[in-house]
């Protein structure tokens, strides 16, 4: 890796340590919830990353369909995998939060429901890719599916929200005022989390690319060996 890349990664590392400090020490406990509020920095930031990751997957899928360059497909694939991990974080941290604050591990809140559906949608994305041998076909199919799933997510969220409009409201965010320090901490963790996502995306894409290149090379070597055997044999 080049020097500027190391510099950026080191900066991100420092940022993450600062973020931990802000999350756990510098920011005040919330008036009613107390220290539980600290889950929020992690939870909301993970959610932002998850949604960004899936958006990027859909976008890069389209780019791949148009440009037909493997790098976009590799990046889209990796982004969906990262998104999946972060969605899992969101669901788990959300549950812990829910238990502490609302006294229930799960509730059919629109955002929660959408997140769960998102998790299923992208589980299918990953399985779909993994279960198709033809590389070109897997890439195309996944791009189309990724795009359709992504445009469906706002629709799902909206419909779940309307749906809930007719049920009694369990959860509200009303009366939840954040002092400036909490807002800063939250914003800072967004930046750090998105930075981490970018780094993981970049490194994993390089890895995916190397893995594919390595396989291509292995195939070349295999072909060359077979050719050699044939000549020696004949």
């Amino acid at each position: 890796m080049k020097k500027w890349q190391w510099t950026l990664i080191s900066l991100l590392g420092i940022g993450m340590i600062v973020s931990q400090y802000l999350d756990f020490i510098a920011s005040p406990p919330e008036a009613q919830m107390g220290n539980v509020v600290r889950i929020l920095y992690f939870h909301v930031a993970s959610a932002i990353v998850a949604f960004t990751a899936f958006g990027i997957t859909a976008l890069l899928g389209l780019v791949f369909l148009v440009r037909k360059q493997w790098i976009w497909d590799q990046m889209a694939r990796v982004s969906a995998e990262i998104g999946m991990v972060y969605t899992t974080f969101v669901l788990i941290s959300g549950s812990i939060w829910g238990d502490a604050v609302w006294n229930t591990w799960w509730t059919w809140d629109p955002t929660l429901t959408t997140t769960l559906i998102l998790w299923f949608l992208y589980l299918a994305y990953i399985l779909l890719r993994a279960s198709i041998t033809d590389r070109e076909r897997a890439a195309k199919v996944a791009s189309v599916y990724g795009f359709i799933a992504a445009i469906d997510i706002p629709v799902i969220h909206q419909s779940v929200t309307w749906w809930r409009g007719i049920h009694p409201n369990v959860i509200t965010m009303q009366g939840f005022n954040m002092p400036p320090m909490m807002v800063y901490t939250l914003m800072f963790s967004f930046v750090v989390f998105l930075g981490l996502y970018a780094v993981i995306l970049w490194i994993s894409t390089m890895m995916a690319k190397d893995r594919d290149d390595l396989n291509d090379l292995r195939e070349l070597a295999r072909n060359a060996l077979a050719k050699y055997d044939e000549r020696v044999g004949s």
Partner: protein
Amino acid sequence: MSHLLELQGIQKSLGHRSVLNGADLTIDAGEIVWLVGPNGSGKTTLIKVAAGMSTPGKGTVSWFGNRPSPRLRARIGVLLDASFLYGELTAEENLFYYARIYGLQDARQKVQEWLERVRLHRDKHVLVKAFSKGMKQRLAIARAFIHQPEVLFLDEPYDGLDVASSQHLTAWLKAMREAGTGILLVSHEDTAFRGLSVRTLKLSQGRLIKGESP
């Protein structure tokens, strides 16, 4: 004049195995290309790519000098390992279905004609799921030939055929060749079409090289 079929630098990977690796091929009117190569060398994959059923990773396919298009698909015929037939339909219904798909003017007559040619006219009301391997293969041949394609892709057409049917098939190939059809033939047999003069190509390490004539 443009080639009936032209493949340039075709690459195709399945999973992490690169099957085709810069394959080039041209077929002209009235030419039979016999494609040989060991198992797993990518002969079927080449046919799928050439017939537009599968997209190559790199390289271009052209039919009659143009990019493959829906309209041009009416002018090619494909016979693969799978017969593309419906088990719950009779032999006649299967052929009629494909004849309709290709929009043949005299569909009914053509269907009867081909049923007789492949000697299935007595079994035309039998459901295909009750057919033997050889009968299915004969019907599949009729299915691939019925719209008189100008380019034919045949993957092991002699598979499961008895001696008489093999001779018939060779005779049809000869007739079609004379009518100007270009044929890409994959077959591990060479005795069956001994009477035909063919250009042999060998698929080796994902490329096509000149092979010995039978």
